[in-house]
């Protein structure tokens, strides 16, 4: 299962990276966004979750069969989505209603219907995954090898601990509780966010199918936009929160000392859970028809998530401070992703302020924000996790340290360079999602050209930088099938 998820991670990642270079086609734009989310993020996050549950809970999955099927269903949905894009659908990964139904002749209703159905299939996979993951954490019917006392506690305590609420309990109570490892808290919070947000997008897509099949029916655009973003923003945290949970395991491991405070390490999680969903309306800041109080609430939630992220970084940096830190390919990736998280976070906070967003909404600052966070942050951290876990599972190291370092430096320089070029474009006011950003008739757009060239250059650096990784990966796997099975 793990080996399968890891292989998928690689394959789909390459699709995503390739599409990054080709900014010109809206179909590719749609495929790139969805490829990264559904095709890469989900298989990776599923695999990592199952690894974390097995390793830190020391208990088998609630249902291995269902876990496997959740992955299969998600990927079937994903490949059907790709098919719908291949046959014409190109409304972007967030396909603002009613755009799918007004293609100006560019795509057919059939491709829209196929897209909606495929997305629903993938989402059924998400729910199956959430079910298996949460049952594995909470069920008392599974025999556990470790954490015995945890499952003897009342269920309300188990739930509160699983989302980090124990940090807010009095010391006397905390001392009596058997702590839950933080990576498990991360997967629970990520899965709960996924579970809260998936039904809303399913409703939106079902309404969309009704609109295609019975034309007089017209979905309200504002309702649809709210339903979509209640899903669309929270799910970006799905793989990310799981990664953040891993930080709390990896950083002490690299630094050869325990976390400075278990309590502060748990304190951010309830905040992340609430704000992870609550931030959603910052995608509607420029909608004058969205109720003001909803937007002000989401602005507050955007601040709260920045605050909670800051707490996390503070604790992780303290773990590293003047320690005997073990610098290797894995830790280089992990620490660099922390830097990117912080840089992308500051950009996000600026956009999360409504009065500032007037100048930044839908400009290149948005791709700058999420490429810092998703590419230089989550993907880099995923590589770090990968370099850490794989040798452990295979009982052997990557064959070449040098290739690992080349992979790190090219990925880091490329990811930061490209996101930085996006930021410059955004500050110049260049709109995102334009097939032709530079327009002959608009003299001021000529200043964008140099940054677009730089972005392409750095994107190529990232792309080429994956080759040494692929080579290293092929070598470490060659003839390693039996040992993988033996370990998992």
């Amino acid at each position: 299962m793990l080996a399968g998820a890891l292989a998928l991670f690689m394959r789909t990642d390459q699709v995503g990276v390739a599409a990054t270079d080709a900014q010109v086609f809206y179909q590719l734009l749609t495929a790139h966004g969805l490829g990264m989310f559904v095709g890469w993020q989900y298989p990776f996050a599923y695999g990592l979750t199952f690894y974390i549950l097995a390793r830190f809970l020391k208990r088998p999955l609630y249902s291995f069969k269902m876990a496997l099927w959740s992955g299969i269903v998600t990927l079937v949905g994903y490949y059907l989505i790709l098919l719908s894009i291949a046959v014409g659908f190109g409304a972007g990964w967030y396909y603002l209603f009613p755009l799918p139904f007004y293609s100006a002749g560019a795509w057919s209703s059939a491709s829209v219907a196929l897209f909606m159905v495929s997305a629903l299939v993938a989402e059924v996979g998400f729910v199956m995954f959430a079910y298996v993951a949460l049952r594995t954490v909470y069920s008392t019917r599974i025999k556990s090898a470790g954490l015995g006392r945890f499952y003897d506690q009342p269920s309300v305590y188990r739930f509160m601990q699983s989302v980090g609420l124990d940090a807010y309990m009095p010391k006397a109570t905390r001392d009596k509780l058997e702590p839950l490892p933080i990576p498990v808290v991360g997967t629970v919070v990520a899965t709960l966010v996924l579970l809260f947000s998936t039904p809303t997008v399913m409703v939106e897509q079902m309404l969309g199918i009704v609109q295609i099949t019975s034309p007089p029916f017209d979905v309200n655009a504002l309702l649809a936009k709210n339903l979509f973003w209640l899903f669309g923003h929270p799910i970006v945290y799905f793989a990310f929160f799981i990664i953040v949970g891993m930080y709390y395991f990896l950083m002490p491991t690299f630094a050869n000392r325990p976390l400075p405070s278990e309590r502060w390490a748990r304190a951010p999680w309830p905040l992340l859970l609430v704000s992870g969903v609550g931030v959603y309306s910052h995608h509607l800041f420029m909608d004058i028809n969205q109720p003001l109080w909803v937007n002000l609430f989401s602005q507050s939630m955007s601040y709260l998530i920045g605050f909670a992220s800051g707490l996390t970084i503070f604790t992780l940096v303290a773990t590293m401070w003047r320690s005997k830190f073990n610098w290797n390919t894995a830790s280089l990736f992990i620490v660099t992703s922390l830097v990117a998280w912080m840089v992308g976070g500051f950009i996000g906070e600026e956009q999360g302020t409504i009065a500032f967003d007037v100048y930044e909404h839908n400009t290149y600052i948005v791709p700058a924000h999420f490429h810092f966070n998703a590419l230089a942050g989550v993907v880099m951290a995923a590589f770090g996790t990968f370099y850490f876990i794989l040798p452990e599972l295979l009982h052997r190291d990557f064959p070449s340290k040098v290739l690992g370092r080349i992979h790190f430096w090219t990925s880091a320089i490329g990811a930061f360079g490209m996101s930085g070029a996006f930021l410059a474009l955004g500050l110049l006011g260049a709109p995102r999602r334009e097939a032709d950003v530079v327009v002959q008739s608009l003299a001021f757009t000529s200043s964008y050209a140099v940054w677009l060239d730089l972005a392409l250059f750095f994107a190529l650096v990232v792309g080429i930088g994956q080759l040494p990784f692929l080579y290293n990966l092929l070598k470490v796997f060659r003839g390693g099938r039996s040992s993988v099975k033996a370990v998992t």
Partner: protein
Amino acid sequence: MPIPFLSLSGDVGAGIPFLSALLLVLVGLGVFFLAWAIYSTRHPRNADRPPAWYQREPLYVLVVASVFIAFWAFTLPFVPLVSSGKMVPVQTIDVQAQQFAWSLNSTALPVNKPVMFHVTSKDVTHGFGVYDASGALIFQQQVMPGYPNDFTYTFRQTGVYTIRCIEYCGFGHPTMIATFVVVNA
């Protein structure tokens, strides 16, 4: 009530120069902090226990929370719905958006007087982004079909302004450009 350094390009919020400077300072401080932490691992000291400054985490909580609260309160008057609602327009411009063109009932607007854009869409959601002659994005709003998208703004400078669709609206999206002029009335 425009606060001078906050209203570099108009009546709403802060302009790009302010935002760029803010980012530069924040990112600079953050990267400096992390770079210092990374450098500190070259000279391990008391490697078995956390740094003394970590005891001040409550101070961090206090400082960051107050910065956020200050930002919240300080920027509230500049939230488009709040600032736009306070102004009484002297002129209303009807703007209609459709795939893939803008149509305006007037292309000459007065300077230093509040004007209201009454923007509607015939088909999908468009983005009404207004650029000044230097290429700075000075304000924007989403144009949602089925709703009036009204927004009041006071232009401070005469000249040619460009409207660019900044919400993806179909394959012809990049061609959706129009211009108007702001003149002394």
